[in-house]
Each structure stands twice: as structure tokens, then as C-alpha cells.
């Protein structure tokens, strides 16, 4: 069905639509936010309203929804009606996948496309998993942080499967861009939920090593620090007691630069019961700072860290100050 030609002929002049009376939009005499519709848009929607109101599930209605979606992929009513037609006609859903892919090429950030895609994949079942994984991969190759594409990918994995190469896919994206937080989030998703990997407890050890290496390469990368903490989400005791966590803080601190996350992690560790050895205090005191920035020498290490953070991270000065005020309840 091809259609570039067909679409340039107004619907009112197409013989197959001769029996349909278009229904204009009921905007009233004084509409607000009125859109100066193009003739094509207005006519397409007038005919759409006609078949929508008469609930005509036909192949011409299906073709009409294609045209309406091409003009505005955000019209959820049109998409909904399209699904009803596809069901009634028992249409070939593989063809439908091609249709969605073409729309997504133009605009991949729209809720309707992805909802429709999910509906399709659900109908097609586990056989669709591979194609869906590849489809999201294509979208993510253009924008590796496309929120909808990631949600869809996760849904596919949870519902249809296809976990086999997912951790490797995360590896690959993180090799391309270690700052890609969406890829870190996906990594967390895989590590905690993949039925093939044994869950967080089985994966923690190797993941901690992976993450610490990432941290050492780019200590200013917030994503890897948050991921590290996330690996102990349900087991903070291990987080506090794992020497790799505290020593990566110490290691970054000793480089004396880009250490906001090392300091804030160390602070959190102390707040959760970590007992720092004197070298931590020495490392913090060795940071190149004004004496006045670090508060009185009688301060505890946690207080000193808050003061240092206030000085080196002034954008969050209020936050660090508040954290300092909370310390007495936490660190005694």
C-alpha cells in the first residue's frame, strides 16, 4: 500500500470514501488554543471522526488511522482505535511492527508509539523478544538515553525474555560512554532481575570490582558511585563492612582532586556505622583547603567531611550543612 501518491489526493476526492460524511471538530464558536490546521490535517481528522463515531473497523479505517498518525503520532485516540481495528480484522501484526518502526524513526519520544509497540509484542509473544530487543537497540544507537526505549526493553526482558546478552550489552554501552547513567541503571536491572545470573547476591562480588575500576578511572562520575551503593541496597551492613568500598574512597581522597563523591560516600559509610582508621582522617586533613573551611579541630571526622564538602561543593552548601546538623543523631 503505498501511498505517497494516494495521500496527496484529498480524501473527499477518493472514490472509496464517497459514502462517508466527514464530521467536523466541535470546537464551539469561540475556541481557545485553536490550531490553524492544515487542510490535509483537518480533512483527515474529519474523516477519522466519522469512522470512529460509527465504529467502522475496516481496512480503509485502518489506512486512515495510518494517515492520521503520520500527521500527529501523539493522538492516543487514533492509536486506540487502530488497535481495535487490528483486532477485528485479525491483521498481520508483523506488518504493524514495520509501521511503528517508520513512525518511531521520525519521533521516538512519544508515549503512544511505545505503548502500541508493547501491545503488539504482547500479542506476538516470546517469539517477538529478539526483534524487540533489536528494535530498542536501534533506537538506543541514536540516543543511548531514550527513556521510552529503555522502559520498553525492560518490559520485553521481563515479559518475553531475551536476557542472554543483556549484561554484555550494558558492558558495550558503558565502554562507549561510561557516563551513560541509563546503561548503569540497566546494569542494575540485569544484575538484580536476570533469571540467568543468580541475582544480586551472586553478582555482587564481580560487580563491585567492575564498578571500582570505573570509579578509579573517572572519580567524578556520579553514576558509578551511585551504582556501587545500589549493589548493597538490601544489605547495608555488607556495604559498611566491605573493605573495597571504604578503600576506594581513601584511594580517591589521596589523589586530592575530584573527590566530592569519595567524601560523600565516606560520610554515608560513617553514618551507617563505619569506623574509620586514622588514615582516613589524615587523608581528609591533607586535602588542599583553607583551615577556616574545615571547622574547629575538635570536630569529628564526619563533621569535618561535611565542612569540607560545604567548601568544595558550594552549590550543595545548604545540603551539606543540613547533613552536618543531622550528625548528632547518627554519629555518636
Amino acid at each position, binding site marked *: 500500500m503505498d501511498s505517497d501518491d494516494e495521500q496527496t489526493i484529498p480524501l473527499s476526492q477518493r472514490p472509496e470514501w464517497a459514502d462517508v460524511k466527514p464530521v467536523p*471538530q466541535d*470546537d*464551539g464558536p*469561540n475556541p*481557545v*488554543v*485553536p*490550531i*490553524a*490546521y492544515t487542510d490535509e*490535517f483537518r480533512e483527515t*481528522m474529519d474523516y477519522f471522526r466519522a469512522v470512529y463515531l460509527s465504529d467502522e473497523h475496516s481496512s480503509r479505517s485502518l489506512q486512515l488511522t495510518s494517515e492520521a498518525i503520520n500527521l*500527529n*503520532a*501523539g*493522538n*492516543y*485516540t487514533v492509536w*486506540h482505535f487502530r*488497535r481495535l481495528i487490528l483486532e477485528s480484522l485479525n491483521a498481520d501484526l508483523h506488518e504493524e511492527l514495520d509501521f511503528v518502526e517508520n513512525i518511531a524513526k521520525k519521533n521516538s519520544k512519544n*508515549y503512544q508509539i*511505545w*505503548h502500541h509497540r508493547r501491545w503488539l509484542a504482547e500479542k506476538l509473544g516470546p517469539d517477538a523478544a529478539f526483534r524487540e530487543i533489536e528494535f530498542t537497540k536501534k533506537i538506543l544507537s541514536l540516543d543511548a*538515553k531514550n*527513556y521510552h526505549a529503555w*522502559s520498553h526493553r525492560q*518490559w520485553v526482558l521481563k515479559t518475553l525474555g531475551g536476557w542472554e546478552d543483556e549484561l554484555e550489552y550494558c558492558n558495550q554501552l558503558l565502554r*562507549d*560512554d561510561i*557516563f*551513560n*547513567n541509563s546503561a548503569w*541503571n540497566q546494569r*542494575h536491572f540485569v544484575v*538484580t*532481575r536476570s533469571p540467568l545470573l543468580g*541475582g544480586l547476591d551472586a553478582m555482587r562480588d564481580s560487580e563491585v570490582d567492575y564498578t571500582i575500576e570505573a570509579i578509579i578511572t573517572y572519580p567524578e*562520575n*556520579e*553514576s558509578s558511585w*551511585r551504582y556501587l551503593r*545500589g549493589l548493597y*541496597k*538490601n*544489605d547495608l*551492613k555488607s556495604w559498611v563492612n566491605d573493605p573495597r568500598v571504604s578503600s576506594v574512597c581513601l584511594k580517591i581522597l589521596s589523589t586530592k582532586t575530584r573527590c566530592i563523591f569519595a567524601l560523600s560516600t565516606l560520610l554515608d559509610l560513617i*553514618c*551507617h*556505622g563505619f569506623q574509620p582508621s586514622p588514615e582516613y582522617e589524615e587523608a581528609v586533613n591533607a586535602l588542599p583547603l583553607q583551615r577556616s573551611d574545615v571547622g574547629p579541630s575538635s570536630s569529628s571526622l564526619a563533621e569535618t567531611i561535611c565542612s569540607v564538602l560545604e567548601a568544595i561543593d*558550594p*552549590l*550543595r*552548601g*545548604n*545540603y551539606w550543612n*543540613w547533613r552536618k546538623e*543531622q550528625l548528632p*543523631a*547518627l554519629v*555518636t
Partner: protein
Amino acid sequence: MEVIPTVTQREQWMVESQVFGIYNNFKELPRRAQTVLLEIVCDKHTEYLTNGLRRLPPSFCVLDANRPWLCYWILHSLALLGESIDVNLKHHVVDFLSRCQDPLGGYGGGPGQMPHLATTYAAVNSIITVGGRRALSSINRDRLYAFLQRMKDPSGSFRMHEKGEIDVRACYTAVSVASILNILDYKLVENVGDYILSCQTYEGGIAGEPGSEAHGGYTFCGLAAMILINEVHRLDLPALVNWVAFRQGVEGGFQGRTNKLVDGCYSFWQGGVFPLIQRLLRSIEEQLRIIGCRKHDNDSSKINVNLPEETRQMHSGLFEQKGLQEPPDVAKFSDVGFDFVKRSADIGPLFQNFALQQYIILCSQIMDGGFRDKPGKSRDFYHTCYCLSGLSVCQYINLETADSSPIAQEVLGPYSNLLEQTHPLYNVVLERYYSARELFSHL
């Protein structure tokens, strides 16, 4: 080894250089010129907005299913600017939105379209912003309640429309609308908290769906919804505060997710989390005290260790067991939004208020009217609405109680920049909210 910058780094540096370019130019200007640049060009914004209300060019065809949103973005922006619209135009708004109202309840994206939760939220907030008995009584509350019930999924969450997608946005818009119209009840609330809770990620922020990435828009929606249903103590609030505090960037504005670019609209979605946090401080500090207690009690910390992934929420589990909060009091849903805004803020803002105001005014404002995402982008009504909403949040955040006026020092630029205050849970101008409540609280 030569280190090649990644896509994230390159894009970030490009934005930084543009933004710092603007700030450096600004610094070198004489004081008088600086004052001019810091001014909110109210007349220009009003002109841009009212023109949009009256007529939109063909390029808006792609927003044809979002017309109540266009109404809300424009009307709320005007209300924040303290601009009133004339009586006829008010009638036209009410008449038009009535045509978007479905006979079976809820509002669609335009006349004849299916009802949708997001456009229902936009329509209801628009009508409250217009105000007056005629406007408020145009909402069919009984039918709207029935629509909300139809959108409720067995899991507790909501669908955006019939057979539509489920996410935290749907939960917020449903709860917000029901709360402001005083039709929120236990049936609507049941289990929605579980769903939102399952969307709080290891980063601390809230995602659109379980498993997805923490995101500014969903974090505001999730947090506000949890407050409105009296279940906010179930979230891991210290983690949420930490995450959102880190979303403010060197540009002064907020990013939506970790390692993403600044965008003016997050001035509200992220910035708007802070007035909520300020009023939750007691809950947050309570959670912190429990961490402190547990720490000294490692052997008996059976409650949180090794909870399976799905039950997660080590904090919430703990709080629920300890019964720190009474179970939600059904009868009191109707007062939550009102009482919350009356609550005093126990602390100043936990972000850099002036840095955000500076980003909004110098980087997002367009001198011809309207606001944008970031330098190099064009203006639109969405960004205008959420930049102004974020600016209003900044100006009022140091007030200890609602209903007083900020002092000049809180307002970056001339005092004439002072906007109207917005309700931090519903994002409608506070005074319009009070008028609506007078009617709805008696129904």
C-alpha cells in the same frame, strides 16, 4: 593512553561553555545593563501567552491531542505573572474545556477525544486557575470519579486512558485531580502507594515504572502523590533528598537524570521537590534517627538485612513495622493538600536558590517572551510554564509559612520580578486553589 571524551562529556561541555559564556558576558556589563537583563519581561511573556490562547500556527497540529495542556501551560503562566484574563476569554476557556469533557467523565486532548488522565489534570487545573463558580461547576465530579475508578488497575496504579499505559504520572494526575476536587477516597488510594514505592530506584529518585531510571518528572509526581495519600513516610526520604540535591548542576539549573543535560523545565520538577522536602523534615529526620539506632544495634537488625529485591525498601519496611505513622486516615484525605501548604517549613532550601533563579532568567528567558529548555533551543509553552513555576518556587522557598510575602533579597532582579505563589503539590496558584477549595470542601 589518549582519552577520548564520551558523548556525555562532549555534550555537557558544550552546554557549560554556552552557559558560562552568558554568565561571563553578564558579569562584564555595567550595573544598569545587568538590571535590565535580570528583569522578567512580563509584558512580552503576557503577549506571547495570550497570543497562544487566541491562535496557534499549523506547526501545533502535533499537539492536537494536548489542547487542555496548552490551556494549562498558558493560563498557569499568566496566573503566576499576576495577569488576569478578561471575562469573555474566561468563558471561552470554560466552554472549550467543557467540549473536551467526556460524557462519561474525564477530559480528552480535544473535543471528541477519549478521556485521558494527563489532559484531565491539565483541564481541572486550568479551570481552577480561571476560577469562579461557573468555571468550577463545569466539572462533572461524579463522572470524573467514575472515570478515575475505571482507570484504576488491579495492581493499585492507574492507566492513562482506557487500555492505556500505567506509570507514576498516571498515579499523580489521578491523585492530584481527586484530591483537589475532594473526591479522593480509600478505593482510589488503595495500593497506589505500593506501586510508587516500587518505582523508587537505587539512586534515590523515582522512575516512571519499576526498574526504570530515576527521573525528575516522575520523582515530583511520585513524591507529591505519596504526600497526598498520606504515605510519604514509606519512601526512603534521605536517599531521595540526596539524589535531588545532586541534580542541580554548575549551570545553576537542574538536570532530569544523573549525567544528563540541564533543562529549564526541571526548575519545577526537581526544584519543586524542595518545598515538599522542607515540610517533611520531621519524617526525614525520624528516618535518619532510625538509621542511627539500628547502627548501634547490629545484631538485631534482622528487619532490613537481605530482604528480597521485590520487597525492597529497607527503610519503609522498618517504618511500617515500627508503626511510626498511623495508618492513613481515610476521612482526612480532603485536608491533606490544604494542611500541607499551611505547614511551616522547618528549614531553608536544600539547594542553591539564586543559582537556579539566575539560570531561569539569564539562560531560559527569551527577551521576546517565553522561556526555553536551554540556550540554543526555542521557546515553548511547556517550558514557559515550568520555568515560571520553578522561579515562583525559588522566590517563596525561604518563607516559613505560606501567606506571607518574600522580602526583596529573595527575589533575583527587581522586586517586580516577584511572581504569585504556587501550591507545591498541585501546581496551581495558591490563591486560586483557596477559592476552589472553598467550593469543593463543602461538596
